[in-house]
């Protein structure tokens, strides 16, 4: 029973982390290796807003998310737009950007003491005898809301539909008057906001540490690859697969292997089905 409950919570955490990455990749074919860095930045941003500027928690969250959106847009507008279309350069540029941010945070003021965000609501609840804190339930709630919002947004909103068009066929979308660069800016901004949301939901469960940036990057890449890069349904299903696998590993083998599971999942998926569970449409591009 506890495997089921913790599995669901872990799966929703993974889905939250990965959805921003898969959104950006799905729409503008940009592998955003700075995703983990954006996640950590949000944590430190919210922390600074609360503790340095003495803002209320409820105000600092939306403020931080707006800033993250602007940061994401700026990253695309000033950095990525110059290397767009050159796969190697895109990878190196985003990877370097993520490294620069993370290592700067590691070097900079954020060390020495532990940084934590307050949980939204204190307290625990018993579900069939297993105590669960409210924050974990909120994670599941936010996960459901985000997934639902993304689905509604991309099916019933003009910008969302344009994003989807861009993801399916860039040239056809451009012929219909959709600006490729603007859509990529929006995608990057939304991707950063999603990274921020996941940070705000997940970070109160532990400390804000720089290593989390690398872990989040690896986990979200794992989820996206297993699910098929750019496929949202796939990403969510993959999040559940990896989430449960991890919890089962922790329960029966050793907690050290949690990350190894994710890495093995990537490698096995790539051997058996390189385009992932649901990445059917672009199979030829990915594999010879």
């Amino acid at each position, binding site marked *: 029973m506890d495997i089921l409950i913790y599995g669901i919570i872990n799966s929703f955490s993974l889905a939250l982390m990965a959805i921003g990455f898969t959104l950006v990749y799905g729409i503008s074919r940009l592998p955003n290796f700075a995703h983990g860095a954006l996640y950590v930045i949000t944590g430190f941003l919210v922390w600074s807003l609360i503790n340095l500027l003495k803002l209320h928690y409820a105000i600092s969250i939306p403020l931080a998310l707006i800033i993250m959106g602007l940061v994401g847009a700026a990253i695309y507008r000033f950095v990525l737009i110059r290397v767009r279309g050159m796969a*190697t350069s895109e990878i190196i540029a985003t990877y370097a950007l993520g490294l620069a941010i993370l290592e700067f945070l590691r070097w900079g003021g954020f060390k020495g003491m532990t940084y934590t965000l307050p949980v939204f609501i204190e307290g625990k609840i018993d579900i069939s005898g297993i105590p669960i804190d409210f924050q974990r339930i909120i994670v599941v709630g936010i996960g459901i809301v985000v997934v639902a919002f993304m689905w509604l947004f991309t099916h019933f909103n003009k910008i969302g539909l344009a994003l989807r068009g861009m993801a399916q066929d860039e040239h056809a979308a451009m012929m219909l008057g959709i600006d490729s660069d603007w859509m990529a800016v929006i995608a990057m901004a939304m991707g950063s906001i999603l990274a921020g949301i996941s940070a705000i939901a997940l970070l109160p469960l532990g400390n804000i540490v720089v290593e989390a940036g690398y872990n989040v990057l690896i986990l979200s890449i794992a989820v996206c690859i297993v699910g098929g890069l750019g496929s949202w349904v796939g990403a969510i299903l993959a999040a559940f697969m990896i989430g449960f696998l991890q919890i089962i590993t922790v329960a029966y083998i050793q907690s050290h292997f949690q990350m*190894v599971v994710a890495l093995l999942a990537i490698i096995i998926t790539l051997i058996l089905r390189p385009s992932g569970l649901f990445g059917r449409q672009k199979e030829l*591009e990915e594999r010879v």
Partner: protein
Amino acid sequence: MSTIERRKERLDRGIKVRTEGIYAVSSWQEVTYLVLPRLILIVGLLLLPLLIPILGFSPYWKRVVSMAAIYGLLALGFDFLAHFVGLVSLGGAFFIGVGGYTAALLNKSLGLSPVFTIPMATVGGAIICTLLLLPALPLRGVYFAIVTLMYPLAIMRIIEALNIFGGTDGILGVAGFPNTWIEQYLIILIVIFALFGLRRLVNEDIGLVFRGVKDNDQSVRASGLSITLYKAIAVFIASGLGCLGGAYLAHIYMWAGISQFALDFSVIPIAATVIGGGGTLVGPLLGCFFLVPISEWLRTFGTLRIVFYSVILMAFIMFRSEGVMVYAQRKYHQFQRWVKV
């Protein structure tokens, strides 16, 4: 106000065209044109260890020369894979780590001297790396990059979790080199040999196939050649260079540990390649001899140095993605002039 539309025209220098064929020996000037750049590089590298005591640097900097050369090997491998075969490998640390651990294990458990462990770790490590990367070889672009990024991290976690190979302490007490001169000159000779060997290789027939794999793999396939086989050969060569560096590193520091899978080994070669000029092979090497000393010099700033070269890397890839050596070669071989459109 009238604007004249002009464009820049680039032409090969006459001397370049003349020296390309068999007429190179027709005059001293042409021989010099051909030989001088290579000679400067070789003599410069060979003089480097001698210059350090003369210029008053502390003996510590001798170690830096060896480190730069090890990074140079990695950068050569990265450049070769990325610009001649089209495989972007973000996991240079994987090669270093495998080579280092192989050499250390051979040395500690079988008691072999570095004379044997280094070549054995080079070939054996390259075989291990190639076999482990084999499943990832059919992948392209982003996918290959992601997988190679994962490998060093995965191995690190596995070593930590299983507590094998000395766990987090690493393998201590690996045999060292008899003296620093041998240590420095051996690696410098290896680097020079690797550089000119690779340059020759990419212009042989197999090099043409490699470039074919990069530019249009379907056409290579249509010619009845196995893409995966050629990619495997290329990965074998590049990982061999990396493992050689790793084995050397283990013997220099008399230690092999999980920090050999650390990020530095993946990032500096990439930065050196971008700065030095991808696709030239010389550029990445010089980039390493430029970046590694700076990185050592910045060691007091801790992880800020990673920030430093990440930012350089980004700036270069955004604004000067061709790199220094491509620019220098263009200036050396070509002249340019304005012509009216």
